[in-house]
């Protein structure tokens, strides 16, 4: 009867994770640490692999294989004297090939079919969870080993570095050099109330961002996007704005949860979001949005390409003479880096165009930087945010056709506004409950059915733009923060599941 999906996720915002996985892993890890630190680490690796395998057992060999092969490559070219470079290159090729097969093969084949008129079969491979993250992380690792930027490490430490569950499926993308000293520090094997409670606090805020805000906004986006052919101009704009907020709260919330989890285990993961929607330029935006990806792309993509040209290698005399770096090459590298970022985000022309558009606008802002800085901050923020939201609409689209159809509808339906079905997506249980029990609010919600949408979007926008980032402030352990943490956790917990409304179509 009514079987569930063939695969499932153990997300941080799931009951099994909160009620079972996390308590078992914390107790097991710190308990075993009292016996032996290496056994505890092995336990953490095993737990992380359980976390991963819960998605699909058949993909466990993919991540284990990837860990073994990458570690093998690093050992090989470290020892090898004559063929180092080729072994290193083979390692990089292995990772790219792995991600290509699982993520890009069908996309490539379907494009070949479309262009050449062939009928090559598609593989319809289900992409292994987090493959983009653990592959990038390991490419970075191979480069770091090649550049001799890593300390000595063994297979267990390396396995933990790749598989450590808080950052395994959605980042932050970490480097071995920032995790290894922490893994080696046996003191971190002792349960620490200060770190644990910091972790609980950060995790809870991340959970609330994801469950209470992002998922609420997501209902509207999921409802509106499939209607793209009939959306009115206001609906297109509302969908894009709401999706921008949704993705921010979703991804940053998830990363906060990851950082909080890391802290519970006494490990410090890098922050990944620093109020990016406050940015007044794309440079600032990318310094604050998915920061560890930006850091990765800068170190492993932009810099190697940028400095691979003779023109960029300036000696002191040239610098003194004021010789300028070739702008054209900087711009090309910038666009190329964003193109790679777009491709990394997904196998679809929407992501490629998204990456390219970010590249071009970033380059444009780079070229006009001085003049742009003279503009009022509000104007810079507005223009930058309009572009970010525009690009988000593209990022969310299932196809270029969907995106351009939506763009084409921008000029339509301004007298109609936003349809009731979309507005109803914001009728969350809490607001409806309050409105039903306060007659004046009930009347208001009937007279102005957009009120819930306005309230939720305004609140989300306020949180995204006004308060300081969670990681900027020290965590105060007071009675108030204890009650706040409990209340947010409890509210999020009972919001993990809800009742569906089965709209009667066709009866």
């Amino acid at each position: 009867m009514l079987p569930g999906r063939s695969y499932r996720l153990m997300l941080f915002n799931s009951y099994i994770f909160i009620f079972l996985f996390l308590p078992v892993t914390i107790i097991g890890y710190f308990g075993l640490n009292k016996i032996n630190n290496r056994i505890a680490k092995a336990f953490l690796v095993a737990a992380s692999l359980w976390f991963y395998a819960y998605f699909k057992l058949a993909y466990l060999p993919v991540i284990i294989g990837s860990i073994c092969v990458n570690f093998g490559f690093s050992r090989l070219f470290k020892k090898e004297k004559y063929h180092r470079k080729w072994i290193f290159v083979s390692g990089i090729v292995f990772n790219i090939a792995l991600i290509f097969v699982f993520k890009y093969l069908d996309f490539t084949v379907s494009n070949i079919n479309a262009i050449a008129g062939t009928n090559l079969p598609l593989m319809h491979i289900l992409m292994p969870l987090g493959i983009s993250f653990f592959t990038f992380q390991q490419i970075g690792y191979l480069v770091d080993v090649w550049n001799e930027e890593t300390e000595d490490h063994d297979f267990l430490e390396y396995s933990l570095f790749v598989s450590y569950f808080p950052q395994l499926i959605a980042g932050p993308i970490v480097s071995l050099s920032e995790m290894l000293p922490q893994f080696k520090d046996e003191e971190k094997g002792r349960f620490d109330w200060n770190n644990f409670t910091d972790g609980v606090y950060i995790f809870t805020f991340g959970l609330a961002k994801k469950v209470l805000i992002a998922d609420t906004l997501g209902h509207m986006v999921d409802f509106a996007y499939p209607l793209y052919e009939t959306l009115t101009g206001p609906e297109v704009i509302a969908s894009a704005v709401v999706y921008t907020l949704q993705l921010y709260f979703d991804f940053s919330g998830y990363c906060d949860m990851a950082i909080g989890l890391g802290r519970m285990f006494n490990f410090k993961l890098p922050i990944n979001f620093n109020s990016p929607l406050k940015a007044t330029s794309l440079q600032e935006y990318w310094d604050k949005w998915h920061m560890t990806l930006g850091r990765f792309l800068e170190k492993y993509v932009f810099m190697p390409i940028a400095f691979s040209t003779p023109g960029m290698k300036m000696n002191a005399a040239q610098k003194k003479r004021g010789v300028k770096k070739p702008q054209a090459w900087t711009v090309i590298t910038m666009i190329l880096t964003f193109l790679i970022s777009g491709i990394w985000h997904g196998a679809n022309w929407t992501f490629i165009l998204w990456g390219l558009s970010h590249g071009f606008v970033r380059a444009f802002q780079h070229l006009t930087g001085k003049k742009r800085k003279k503009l009022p901050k509000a104007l810079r923020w507005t223009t930058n945010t309009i572009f970010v939201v525009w690009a988000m609409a593209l990022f969310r689209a299932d196809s270029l056709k969907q995106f351009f159809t939506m763009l084409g509808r921008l000029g339509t339906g301004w007298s109609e506004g936003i349809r009731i079905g979309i507005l109803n997506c914001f009728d969350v249980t809490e607001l409806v409950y309050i409105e039903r029990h306060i007659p004046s609010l009930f009347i208001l919600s009937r007279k102005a059915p957009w009120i819930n949408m306005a309230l939720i979007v305004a609140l989300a926008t306020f949180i995204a733009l006004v308060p300081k980032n969670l990681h900027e402030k020290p965590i105060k352990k007071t009675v108030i923060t204890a009650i706040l943490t409990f209340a947010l956790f409890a509210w999020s917990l009972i919001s993990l599941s809800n009742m569906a409304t089965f709209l009667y179509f066709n009866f």
Partner: protein
Amino acid sequence: MNKTINPKKWGITVLALILIFVIAVGAAVYYVDPFWHFHGPTAGLSYPYVDERYMNDGIARHFDYEAIIAGTSIAENFKVSEVEELWGFTTIKQTAASATFYEQDGYVRRALSHNPGVKLVIRSLDATRLVTGPTDESYDDIPKYLYDESVFNDVRYLYNKDVIQRVTEVINYTRAGNVTKSMDEYGVWYPYATYGRDEVLAGLIDYSDFTEEVMFDEQAAKTLWINVEENVLKTAREHPDTEFVFFIPPYSAAYWYGMVKTKQLSYTIEAYKLAVSRLLTEKNIKVYDFSDKVDITTNLDNYMDTLHYGEWINDKMLKWMHEGEGELTVDNYEAHLDKVKEIYENLEYDYE
């Protein structure tokens, strides 16, 4: 309140509050159990009905019954008391609006697994659900965690803000002096319906674009065959002592007008022919058709829209089925359905 406290104290306070919350909420939901997932109605509490997809399994688990009414909105207005009067069987409803065959069969199977002694299943044979995939569902978010024996996924029921709200509703409903309504009222939509010719004709569309005859081709036949096999016949074979009664409803003449105008009349009749021929291969299946009740179908005041008739038609259908009126047999079903086709092909419609 704003004074910094020891992290250990802070942590223990937060964890203790969470633990108390988890125990308290879990206990409250378990005790009230608004969908009767863990137990039947708690003594002293009255329960408002909610969407059937949340309550069907609870009813099937904890109620006493010998007969089941299943199907979609065209079966929701049946009264179990009528079945009880006519057949003498205690009856429950397992209906769900817009359910596919797969979903309808799922509810029937679940009920039969809870109560294998069921003697009668009455189920609708919706034209719109004949040619659907064997595992198609009308919705993505059917609460499947209520439809299995796993205790682990019950957390989705125990810690669910909407369910908690239902708990408060049960309490408020009881406090207001209400009693749980009879099963006759479960899933019904007639109290909210407006009937009449104008309502029905308002649902007609511009048919000028439909110029090509829709063929009931091999692919459609195969899909229907598999759908009926998987979602009707298998269950009937597994329960030879249960009688399964299917009925083709008396859709309004405006519905058939739509079929004629969209060039789907032959398609629908052929689909029904194949479905009925397959159903009649099992001895414990009976099929009735009321499409030829022209006195009813042409009087649009009997309808809310082209498909949905008033509850008085449901009452009539139960009587007819009990009396054997409109029964299709291996010998008569083709001629009968051809007659239905002829009726609506030649009817003089005045709907434009």
